[in-house]
Each structure stands twice: as structure tokens, then as C-alpha cells.
């Protein structure tokens, strides 16, 4: 730009024009500045936005490597107790992630970001990026850091009398973990309030991914906080504890999962765990559980003698019922009181073995994450035609796996991977817990691993099957559930539930013990045909309008359990057949998300929940 040569034109007649020129120039500059400022601001936002993106990716990468490190655990061939290769601890990884997230947050603050975020329409993506960076910082600082600190402390500061959990560390961590879970919920709420749909799809996708991660993190932090509150006392901080641990055989379905076959008694004393007894259902054949579960329970299940017939003790999906029967039966059998009960199935063992590593049985058979389900629920029936030998084999598996898991639980280096796997199984409800101590049970009962039917009136759908044939054919059972809300009418919302059950058992080649029928039936069956009591647990207050089986109207048995209407059908399910149950219900209108009961079985439930708009009230 050419500047005016003022010193060569001092004449007075030029002064006015000079002033005018300067005024115009200033105005031009002002206009230019005003016009350029948004451009400069936009440029600033783009540059700092890209830098913030890099910081957030770096933060994410640090957390991903930490997750992989925890999941992998130490190499399996390293003997227990040996020195492990030095690795960066979880606290260091989380701190690195927190530092990156903090830088990202700083980069997205300031007048330019503040102003841009408040521009209508155009400011949507800016607001989302700003909010996401702040959420990432809070997540790493207020949520993950306390979790990592606790994990590090639990790993390094083990009990003086062995490598088991240091309960005092866990108890001290409880308040911080509680605060972390509250912070996680707050962050989730804030992310929910960010714009979901802007003119920049990439930003929308990033927000959705963050929300999805938070959906996994929030319950995990809630579980961790709850664990810190109840685990010290449950693991015997104030005195020895004793628990019944039941291994459910999901090849024969029961309400909580599968038939209670093998079981063990677990003791916990100041964090030190040990199994003191292993047994199977035959041992409990004569046990009588002196427990009164109320008239409602008796009306639904009493005719099947659940308190005197061990294998019918868990017909209801409400796990506390089964746990109370098991603990009372054990007391009747041995005269010893227990403090609670756990239940898990071979699929849960598979998940835990993936973290702990495989184990060998006395006969040399390898039990791995990949084969434990097939080994215990299918191939063992062919390998051991003698029932006694097979039940002994189940106990061998239970003993070996339990020993392996305890060994890893007492190894501080390998424990985080096992706890992470256990946490996953708990959240899926494949491992269930009940405490006979009311203060602990109040905490457990609200969690997925408490296995309790919900007390709320929120929409609920629960498909529950009980094997009514005495077969082991539920290994081959496919379940599909569709929950589809319909019209809103004066009396509520119409809901259609469609259940498809398919028996995929082969037509031949199965061992007799798998296909044998113990039920009384007034019709002939073929090997491989199965019979189920199919129950649908509906939302509280629901009413059945119509029911149909394979397109034909039917009547179904109706009961109530813990406020939920229960519709049950006695269903013959031939080998290779699919049968379809349709229920048309009238439920209270609600905008709350549907709560789905997933009965843990061999094959996962395939559930579809159709979206439901508000009924307008």
C-alpha cells in the first residue's frame, strides 16, 4: 500500500483535503476491520478447532491404549507372582488423556468461540465442539482420574497377608468413586443438551460417538461406586462371610437363566476368597427351604414346589427369590447360615476365562473361553452317557475354573483384566448377586446384577422361558422379541409384542439324556421336540386385549409378579419348528425408555424395540 508523503505537502490549502482523506481512510479501515473480524474469528475458530480435534484424538488414543492394556493383561505364560514388565500405570495414561482434553477445552474457549457459539444456526457446530471438549475434560479429570487412582491403589497396595484385594483401600475410595459417578451423569446430561443436528454432519457424528461412550461409562462408574460401597463388607472386612454360588445350566432354561446344577460355597474373610465346598443338584434333592415368598409368589409358582425342589427353585426371573431359596435350602441341608448368593452360567465363565486364561482339568481337558459353553452344555452329554460321571465332570470344571479365577483375583497384576471382565458380565446380568444383609441388598437390588424385576411403572418387556420337558434342548433355542407401540387411545397406548421361538435342535444324533422327556403329556413327541413355559412380563398396569399363537387366537394363563402382569403359555416346540406368540396389550402411556429383561441363555435374545412417539400428554 502506498502511504501519503505528508512532509512534502505542508501547504494549508491541502489541510482540509488531508483531513477528509484521513477520515475516509479511517472509515474504510473501520469498515474493513468490522468486515474482517468475523473472517479472522472464523479463521481462529477453524485453526483452534483443528488443534482441539488433534488434542481430543490424542486423549482418546491414550484411553484406547489403556483399555487395550487392561484387556490384554499380562502374558498368560508368566507364572503368578513373577515380576512383570514395567508398564505405564492406568493413572499415567488417564492423566495424559486429561491433559490433552484440558488443552482441547482451553483451545475452544475465549471470545471468538463464545460469540460464534451464540450465532443462530451457524453456531450449532461451534457449540457442539465447545461442549464436547468441555465434556472430555470433565470426563477425564472428574471421572476417569479417580477411577484410575483407585485402580492403581488397588493394584499396588495389596493386603499384607497376600495378593488379594485391600478392602480398606476400596472403602476409602468409595466417596471419590461416588462423586465420579455423579460427575459422569452430569457430563452425560450436558452432552444430551448439545445440538444433535447441525449443518456439519462430522460434528454431529462426533457428538453421537461421545454420547455413546458416555452411555457405557456412566453405568460403569455407578457400578464401581456401588461396588466400593458394598464390597468391603461383602468380602468380609468386618468378619467372615459365606455365599452359595450356583452354576446355572442354560441348556435347560429357568427364569433366572438356567437350571441350578453344580454349586459351590464361597467364603470371604478380609478380602481373602476360598471355596469350601462343591456339590450338585443331587446333593440338594431333599433340602427344604424354610422361606415364605408371599401369596403372590405361591400363586404363580407354588404348585411347582420351588422351595422343596432344588431344580425348580429359580422359575421366577426375580433373582432375589431364587437366592433366598438357595440360601435357606443350604441352611436346611447343613445347618449353616450363609450371607448371600451368586449365580453365573457357562457364558459368564467364558467371559471370565477370556481374562484369566484357560485351565486344564485333571484328565487333561483344556477349558477355555472358547469351549466352556459347548463343553458343559452340549458335548459333555455325548462324552459322558453316565449321568453320575457327567455330574462329576461338571464339578471338575467348576473346581478348576473357580481355582483359576481365584488365583488371578489374588494376583494384583492380572486382577484389573479380570475385574473388567467381571464388570461386563455383571452389567449383562450373567453374574447375579444377592445379599442377605438388607443394607447391602438395597444397593444390589437396583443394579442389573441384582436381577430384580423393576419396581417402576416405566415400559417393560420381559420374555422368560422355563423348560417344561426336562430336556437339555434349550442350548438350541433361538428367541426373538419385537416390542412395537401402536396408537394412543383414551385408555393408554396399544402395544404389540411378537415372540418367535425356534427349536434348532438337530432331528437326530443327540444323546438320549438331552432329548428325554420327563413331562406328562397327552400326545406323542419325537426326540428333539421341546416344551416350554413361555412367560411375558409386561409393564405395570398393562392389560391383555388379544393373544394369538401362530396366527390363531388363544387364551393364556395370567398372573401377577411384583406388580407386573405375567402371561404364560404352555408351548410344545417341535425340533426345527418356529412358533410365534403375539400379544396385544394396552399399557399406560409413557415417554420413558423401555426396560428390557434379557434372560441369559446360550443363544442371545434378539430384541427389537420400535420407536414410540409421545402420546401427547
Amino acid at each position, binding site marked *: 500500500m502506498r502511504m501519503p508523503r505528508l512532509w512534502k505537502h505542508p501547504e494549508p490549502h491541502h489541510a482540509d483535503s488531508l483531513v477528509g482523506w484521513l477520515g475516509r481512510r479511517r472509515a474504510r479501515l473501520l469498515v474493513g476491520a468490522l468486515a474482517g473480524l468475523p473472517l479472522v474469528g472464523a479463521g481462529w475458530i477453524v485453526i483452534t478447532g483443528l488443534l482441539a480435534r488433534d488434542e481430543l484424538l490424542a486423549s482418546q488414543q491414550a484411553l484406547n491404549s489403556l483399555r487395550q492394556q487392561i484387556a490384554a493383561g499380562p502374558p498368560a505364560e508368566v507364572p503368578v507372582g513373577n515380576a512383570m514388565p514395567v508398564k505405564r500405570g492406568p493413572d499415567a495414561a488417564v492423566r495424559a488423556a486429561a491433559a490433552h482434553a484440558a488443552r482441547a477445552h482451553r483451545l475452544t474457549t475465549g471470545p471468538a468461540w463464545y460469540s460464534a457459539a451464540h450465532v443462530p444456526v451457524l453456531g450449532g457446530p461451534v457449540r457442539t465442539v465447545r461442549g464436547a471438549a468441555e465434556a472430555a475434560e470433565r470426563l477425564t479429570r472428574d471421572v476417569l482420574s479417580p477411577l484410575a487412582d483407585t485402580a492403581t491403589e488397588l493394584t499396588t497396595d495389596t493386603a499384607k497377608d497376600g495378593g488379594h484385594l485391600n478392602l480398606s483401600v476400596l472403602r476409602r475410595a468409595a466417596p471419590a468413586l461416588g462423586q465420579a459417578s455423579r460427575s459422569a451423569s452430569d457430563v452425560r446430561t450436558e452432552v444430551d443438551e448439545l445440538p444433535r443436528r447441525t449443518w456439519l454432519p462430522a460434528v454431529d457424528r462426533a457428538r453421537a460417538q461421545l454420547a455413546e461412550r458416555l452411555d457405557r461409562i456412566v453405568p460403569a462408574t455407578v457400578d464401581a461406586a456401588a461396588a466400593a460401597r458394598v464390597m468391603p463388607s461383602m468380602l468380609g472386612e468386618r468378619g467372615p462371610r459365606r455365599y452359595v454360588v450356583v452354576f446355572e445350566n442354560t441348556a435347560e432354561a429357568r427364569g433366572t437363566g438356567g437350571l441350578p446344577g453344580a454349586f459351590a460355597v464361597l467364603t470371604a474373610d478380609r478380602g481373602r476368597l476360598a471355596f469350601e465346598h462343591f456339590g450338585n*443338584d443331587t446333593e440338594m*434333592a431333599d433340602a427344604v427351604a424354610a422361606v415364605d415368598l408371599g*401369596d*403372590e409368589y*405361591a*400363586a*404363580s*409358582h*407354588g*404348585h*411347582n*414346589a*420351588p*422351595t*422343596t*425342589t432344588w*431344580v*425348580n427353585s429359580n*422359575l421366577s426371573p426375580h433373582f432375589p427369590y431364587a437366592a433366598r431359596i438357595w440360601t435357606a435350602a443350604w441352611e436346611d441341608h447343613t445347618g449353616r447360615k450363609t450371607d448371600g448368593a451368586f449365580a453365573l452360567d457357562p457364558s459368564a465363565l467364558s467371559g471370565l476365562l477370556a481374562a484369566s486364561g484357560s485351565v486344564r482339568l485333571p484328565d487333561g481337558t483344556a477349558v477355555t473361553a472358547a469351549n466352556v459353553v459347548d463343553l458343559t452344555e452340549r458335548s459333555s452329554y455325548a462324552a459322558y452317557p453316565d449321568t453320575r460321571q457327567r455330574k462329576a465332570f461338571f464339578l471338575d470344571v467348576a473346581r478348576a475354573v473357580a481355582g483359576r479365577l481365584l488365583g488371578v483375583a489374588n494376583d494384583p497384576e492380572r486382577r484389573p483384566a479380570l475385574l473388567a471382565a467381571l464388570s461386563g458380565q455383571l452389567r449383562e446380568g450373567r453374574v447375579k448377586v444377592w445379599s442377605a444383609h438388607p443394607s447391602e441388598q438395597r444397593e444390589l437390588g437396583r443394579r442389573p446384577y441384582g436381577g430384580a424385576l423393576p419396581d417402576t411403572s416405566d415400559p417393560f418387556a420381559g420374555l422368560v422361558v*422355563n*423348560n*417344561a420337558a*426336562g430336556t437339555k434342548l434349550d442350548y438350541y433355542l433361538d428367541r426373538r422379541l419385537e416390542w412395537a407401540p401402536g396408537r394412543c387411545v383414551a385408555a393408554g397406548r396399544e402395544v404389540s409384542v411378537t415372540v418367535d421361538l425356534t427349536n434348532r435342535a438337530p432331528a437326530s444324533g443327540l444323546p*438320549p*439324556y438331552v*432329548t428325554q*422327556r*420327563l*413331562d*406328562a*403329556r*397327552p*400326545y*406323542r*413327541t*419325537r426326540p428333539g421336540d421341546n*416344551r416350554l*413355559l413361555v412367560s411375558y412380563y409386561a409393564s405395570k398396569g398393562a392389560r*391383555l*386385549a*388379544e*393373544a394369538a399363537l401362530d396366527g*390363531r*387366537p*388363544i*387364551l*393364556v*394363563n*395370567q*398372573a*401377577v409378579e411384583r406388580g407386573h402382569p405375567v*402371561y404364560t*403359555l*404352555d*408351548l*410344545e416346540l*417341535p*425340533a426345527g*419348528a418356529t*412358533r410365534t406368540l403375539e400379544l396385544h396389550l394396552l399399557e399406560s402411556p409413557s415417554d420413558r425408555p423401555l426396560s428390557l429383561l434379557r434372560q441369559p441363555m446360550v443363544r442371545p435374545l434378539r430384541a427389537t424395540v420400535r420407536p414410540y412417539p409421545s402420546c401427547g400428554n
Partner: protein
Amino acid sequence: MIKSSPWRAVVAATAATFVAAVPLTNAQFAYADAPTNVYQPYPPELITASVPAGGAIYFGAEGFEPEEVVTASLDPEFSTALSGPPRSGGGGGGGDECEDQDATYQANTRGTVFGCFQVPKGTPPGPYLFTLTGEESGSVSAPVTVTARNGHGDGHGHGHGGGWRSADGASLPMEGGIEGQPGTVKVAGNGKTLALRTGAAEEQPGSIGTSQREGLALAGYDSTSHVSGSTVPTETDSGLNWVLLGGAAGLAAVAVKTVTVVRRRHARTEQG
């Protein structure tokens, strides 16, 4: 023609053995595949009402037209099991007795009907369907197992039956306090619900593992329906029981008649 006493003994023993073998045969069918000496209790079953012959069924149902005339009936669940439906009325043998033994009822203005149905005392034990049929709106059914007279269920039903009727239709059966009561069986569908109670379904310690049970009703699975996958129940165990029992009784009658005829002839011969 049988003449000698050894032959008489053989025929009588054969008849007796045949008769005695019937329940044993059925038991063998039930346990044909089950390994012995292993804890294998009965699998769970759907709750069904159980009432002794001559007893009473107390019911409440909704979904009928207002003031509709409703007829109650008790029909064998499997047509091969019995020769014909029992008549209502004629109770007094099984414990409870309905005040009004007519099997016709009238729904109230809300389409709800309450009542007491007398199971005829001569009703053979077995699986039945208790059905309420409205003149206009159709029917609703629930499975009921009729046991031998003086079976369990005696003396449990009066209070419940009276209680339902005292509600006078003001509250529906499912809302009137019987929900969740042991012994109550309730079915729903087709726009109707039916709750019935005979007072016989308390938990029996060890009953599942030890008792011999009746053939069971399958909701949604009738004896003539075709099931996906081509498994069709063509014949019932209870039907087979009756055929075998009839055959045994016939054989026994022939044997007794033969023995009688032979004895008379022998007596005449001796007299002669």
C-alpha cells in the same frame, strides 16, 4: 371251553395281571428314557385348577356383553378321553356345594359374571375345559383337572365363592382381591378374562418329585391342531389308558363269566 381248575386259575391270573399292568405300563412310558437312581424331578408345569368330582368351581369373568346370558360347561379336554360331557348340577360328593346349581348365569351391566359351578359327582377324573359361553359374545375357557371324589380341595372354596359374589360385580375379579391368591387360575385372551378357584393349589412339599400326575392341558395346543414342524399329537396317553382299561375290564369280565359258567357246569356235573 375251559373245564379244568388249572385253566381257571390261569385265566383269572391273566386277567388280574392285565388289569394291574395298565398303570405300570403307563409308568414305564413316562420313564422309558430316564436313567435310574439319578435326581430327576418333574419339570415345571403351568398351574391348573384341580377340583374333586362333586366339588364346586367358583369363577369370575369379564368381557361379556352387559346383562348377557352366560352358560357354563365342563367338557373333557381330549375327546378321546371320555364318552361325553358331564352335566352340571348333582353335586354333594366332593365337598363344596353351590347354592344355585343351575349352569346359567347373567353378566352384570359391566359385562362381568360371577358364579359357582357344581361339578357332577359322577365326573370321571381327568383333564377338562371349564367354559363360559355368552349368547352373543363368545366363550372363554380354562383347564381344570377333575380328581377323584374327596380328593384335595375339600372345604376351601366357600369363603372365596361367597366373597366374589358379595362384590356384586362392583369390582372385577382381578381387582377384587383374588389376584395373586394361591389356588387361583386366571386366563386371558379374546377380549375376555376368566378367573377360577377351587382352593386346591397349595404347594405340596415334594409333590413334584413324587406324585403321579394327570395329563395336562396345554393352552394354545389342542389335540387336533397341527403344530409347525409337522409334529402332531395323534393320540393321548389318557385315551390309551381308557382303551387298555376297557380291554382289561372286558377280558376280566370274560374270565369271570367263563369261570362262573365252568363252575355251574361243574356243580351240575357233581350234582348229576
